[in-house]
Structures are given as C-alpha cells and as structure tokens.
C-alpha cells in the first residue's frame, strides 16, 4: 500500500499562519485516495524523522530565533535527505531559513541552512495582502493564490528558479517579480492563507513529489475540488482588486 511520511519541523514554534491547514490538506488529499499518511512532529533536539516530505512553517520572530540554531545543526542531514529524494515545503519564515542567512534591521545575521541559494534582508515596510502568482506545474501554467505578510526581502541566487512570477502582490522582494523558490523537490514560498487548501493542484504536486521518493511516479486520482476551486476563484479576484 502506498504511504506518505511527513516530517513536520517545529510544529510548536513555527505555526503562526495556520500552518496546520497545510498539514490537514496533505493528510486529507492523501487519505481520500487511500494513501496512508503519518505526520511526525520534530521539535528542538528531537531526532530528524525519516520522511518523504519535510514541512517548515513560519513563526513569530522570537520563535524563529529559538529554532534557528537547532535547524542549522541539521543542515547536513536535511541536505542528505533531499539528495536521497525527499521533498521540502517551506512557508514564510521557514522559507527564509532555507537560504544562506537572514539579515535584520541592525545588520545582525541569523544563519540559514543554505539548502537553496537565496538570502533575505529585513525591509522597513511589511508586504501584506492577497497575492496571485503564475506557476508552472507539470508543464502547465497554474495560478497559485494566498496571502503574504512579510518584512523580509528575499533575493534568489543566479540561475535559481522562483516558484512563480507575481501577477498581483509583492512576492520575494516587491521588485523583481519573483515569488518563492523551486529547486527540484524543494519548494519555498511566502504564500500562506494557508497555501495548500485553495491550491489543490500545487498540493497534489507536492504529494506526488514526496511519494516519488519511495514509490516512484504515482498517478493521483482526481478528487472533487468544487469547494477548492470556488475558494481559489474568490481569492484570485480579491488579489486582483487589492
């Protein structure tokens, strides 16, 4: 039987923007297809679980500072897991921590895990609002919708692909039109709302990428996404009229 193992990193610290909703979608959309799901929480000092997908949410500034050292101490393990086929989904603060470092207002640096080539600098004004990006999923253009609320300005290294291009909203830094990062099975984004409920195509993309580690290419049966589509349409309309 096909099964999915999700490693939820720091669920007690990084949960500010309803990250639980993303986990609920990973669980629901897998179980509705008969795929068994195990979600393993991993707090500070816990052993890194063996997982097909590692999920990293966002937290308050202090909570992020509390987990930063622990996360950095796992850099090599996470790198090895990704090299072994594991997928990563990181949102908001968790996305910033995928990069080399975060530089605060006073120039103080919080190191990241350097899993992808990006850096983040604190900005003065927060970038807040509904957002829509255009994202290539399995060769077709897909609109991903949600809400962003971040002071950090993220810049991708040369040749690093964003998750998508901003249609409405701010994205990585409010300037270059990019949003998030995608490198192989590693996805990072500022979009919460939460991210996955209103974006079922992206949710299935993440599930398929994670399943591929142990089960190879899996075809996911279609689900009834009427409510998902309705919520998506409303969010996209709001983003266009921000």
């Amino acid at each position, binding site marked *: 039987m096909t099964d999915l193992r999700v490693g939820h990193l720091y669920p007690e610290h990084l949960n500010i923007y309803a990250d639980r*909703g993303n986990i609920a979608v990973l669980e629901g959309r897998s179980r509705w297809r008969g795929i068994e799901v195990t979600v393993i929480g991993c707090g500070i000092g816990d052993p890194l679980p063996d997982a097909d997908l590692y999920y990293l949410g966002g937290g308050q500034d202090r909570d992020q500072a509390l987990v930063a050292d622990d996360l950095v101490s796992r850099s090599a393990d996470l790198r090895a897991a990704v090299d072994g086929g594991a997928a990563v989904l990181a949102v908001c603060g968790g996305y910033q921590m995928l990069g080399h470092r975060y530089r605060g207002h006073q120039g103080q640096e919080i190191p990241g895990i350097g899993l992808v080539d990006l850096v983040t600098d604190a900005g003065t004004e927060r970038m807040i609002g*509904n957002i829509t990006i255009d994202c290539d999923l399995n060769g077709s253009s897909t609109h991903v919708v949600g*809400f962003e609320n971040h002071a950090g300005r993220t810049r991708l290294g040369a040749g690093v692909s964003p998750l998508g291009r901003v249609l409405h909203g701010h994205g990585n830094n409010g300037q270059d039109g990019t949003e998030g990062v995608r490198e192989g099975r590693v996805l990072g984004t500022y979009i919460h709302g939460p991210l996955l409920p*209103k974006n079922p195509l992206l949710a299935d993309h993440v599930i398929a990428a994670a399943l591929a580690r142990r089960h190879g290419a899996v075809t996911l049966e279609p689900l009834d996404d009427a*409510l998902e589509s309705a*919520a998506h349409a409303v969010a996209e309309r709001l983003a266009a009229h921000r």
Partner: protein
Amino acid sequence: MFAAKVAAARAVARLSRLTGSGGGTTLPGRVLLQVAPDAISRLAGRLQTGSIVISATNGKTTSAKMLAGMLEPEVEVCHNRAGANLASGIASALLAAPRARLGLFEVDEAALPGVARSLQPRVLVLANLFRDQLDRYGELELVGQRWGALTGELGPDRVLVRNGDDPLVAMLPTGSARTITFGIADPAIGLAELPHAADSKWCARCGGRLAYATVFLGHLGDWVCPNCGARRPALDVSAADVRLLGLDASEFQLRTPLGTARVRLPVPGLYNVENALAAAAGACALGSVALERVVAGLERFDPAFGRFERMRIRGRDAVLLLVKNPAGANEAIRTLAQDPSPKRMLIALNDRVADGRDVSWIWDVDFERLVPWLEAAVTTGTRAAEMALRLKYAGAPAAAIRIDSALEAALDLALDSGDGPVYLVATYTAMLELRDLLVRRGVVRRYWEAA
C-alpha cells in the same frame, strides 16, 4: 477655543444620528481629535473620580458592560458602550457624557498605549492577549512589548488589574502600581492539555516552555515555568467551584477582598467566568463598590450584542455569536458542545479591514470539534467559499454544507433548515451587517440603542 471645538464635534454627533448614518460613536471624536489632538486628556480631566480602562483581545466589551452594571445607576458613568474602542470612540464617548463622574472605557489592545497615556486611568484592567489579526496588529509578542512599556510606567497612585491565568499578562512589568490579580481557582474545570491554538507556550521571562497544572482556555491556566520558576501569581479575586450550566449560565464562588459570594452568571462558557472576574476585580480596584453590587451586576447581566445574544427570527430561536480569532472561536465551539444536540448554523466570514484581511486564522480554529453535531451549515460573507472549504477539511459531509455569499439569502436558507435554534456565527463586519438586516426586519434594535 477648546469649548468651541467641543461644541462643533457634538453637532457632528447630532447630525450623525439625524441622518441615520450611525450612532455618533466614532465620527465626532475623530473630528475633535483632528482639531484638538489633546482632547482626550482634556475631557478626561473633567471626570471627578478619574477613569478605569479595560483592554484585552477577547471579552473587553463584555467585561466593561458587566462593570457598568455594577456601577450604574448610582454612579454617572461615561462608557463607550457600543464598542467603539479606538481613540475616536473614547473621545466620542467623552463628548456625549459631559456630566459623568467616572470614565469606563474598553480600549483596543493596539490602541491601548496611546489612549492610556492620554486618559491616565486610575485603574487599568488587562485581561488577556490572544493571536488576532496579524495583518493589522502584528505578532502577539509585539503587542505584549508595547503593553509592557506602558505598565512599566505606572505610578504608585495607579492600580493594575491583571489576569493571572494569562502568562503574557501576568508577567508584564508592574511599575510602582498596586496590583490586583484575578483568575480561576478550580482545577477540576480545566482541560487536560493545551489546545492547538494556544498562543503563548513559552515563558516571557526566560523563553522556557511553560508547564500547566490546568489549562482553562487557550493559553490561560495555572502555569509555571520549570526553567526560571516564574508562576501564576497568588489570586486576589477568583472563581472557585465553577459549574458550567449548558448554554444558559454558569455558577461559581466569587472570592474577593470584599468577601465571598455564590454567583449565578446568566451567560454560558468559562470565558465569561474570566470576563466576570475581570469586571469584579476592576470594581474592587475602584474601591467604592460593595460586594452586593458586584454580585447584582453579574447576576443581572444581559449579554453584549453578538455575544450569545438570543433572538427570535421568523418564529425560530436564534443565537448570535461574534467570532474574531482562534481563541474566541474555540471557546464558542466548546460552549456550544456542552449541548450535544444536532445544530444548524450560519457562518459568516468577512475579510474586511476590521475583520482582518487575512482569513488564515480559521484554519487554526478547531472546527473538527463542531462537526460531530453539525447537521447543516450555510456559509456566507466575502469568504463564504473559504469557510465551506474549512468545514470540508474538518470532516463535514458535503451534503451538510451550502454556500450563499449573499447574507440575507444565506440567513433565510439557514432559517429554512431543520428544527430547533439556529446559531448565527459571524466575524465583526459580518455581524454588523447581520444586525442591520435584523433591525430592518424588526428583530433587534440598533446597536447604539441596544447596548
């Protein structure tokens, strides 16, 4: 000169009522503050016995209304009773009550530092801090830091009334103020563990993980930091032997420095016991209220608008519940769950500025606990579809969910479903719209008249 500005602002208030555009609860104050930025401190200086301010994320309207019930009619009180709790609302209330002797103000938690520095209240009641509207207020800890800067300045002639059950509030600096601490003294009434949406699991002093002997709601409970030894302070005002009586009431032993009394509070839920304690502790801090009046104020309490407010619509019983954030919504659900009969609901989710543009908070609410007895739900509001989606992932069967983003049609749809009372759950602006609708149908009065 100031008198002329005040007179002009009062004229704005009359105009606002005459034109039916509102109750004059914010506009006159906004106008006055534009021409006289120090208007709040000048008008508040006329209150002979000073003022008392209540702030919290949840329950401040209810607590203020309970306290008003203990004070009135013996004391002429200036009270922003319609819930306009920003600086403009405080200034409007002051304008409208030129003969008041005492100010009683609920103040928005983000607006508190500025308003309190203008008002210089004799008593400051701080009841709780929960995660709320991250797009507007910023993170919870930032609000806490701003509160701490304020409480650290309090002089010896001030009283700080604080909720000992809330570690974020109980660990605020107290300056040289006298403190009165309130909380629940009944370990049997608590939860076994912190709910998912618990907002403050970490010690504000050392960052260690807090341990709870009992959790009452959200992160409120009997807490201790095993790392640095900080713990819930001794309670001056408390509720012991608490009995929750379904959706109708609760009973508890109210212990205060004034004495002890059994209280039957005619509104449900443990969160209302917390609200009652905030009001009772505020009354104790004022120093001029007898225990009998405290008890009578609580027992005669009629809920603030939209807080388990009962009404009849088209011959059916309906209950109106305001929800604004995960902690408040979880308590509403927990209270509803005390009556396990099947329920029909209307859930109105808006994402206007006053609701918070970001609706991600609904995914932190334990709607899973509502599903077992949810017979039918109609979702409405600007984010009706998102709300329906949330119920789907909470496990509600598709057949039980209907969407109609038009409020009036959705209300009628909910009223047409099944039998028994209909629960109308709404975010702030959705509740105002719903009340407008109910006023037009003659079901309820306007909010500034009813409050």
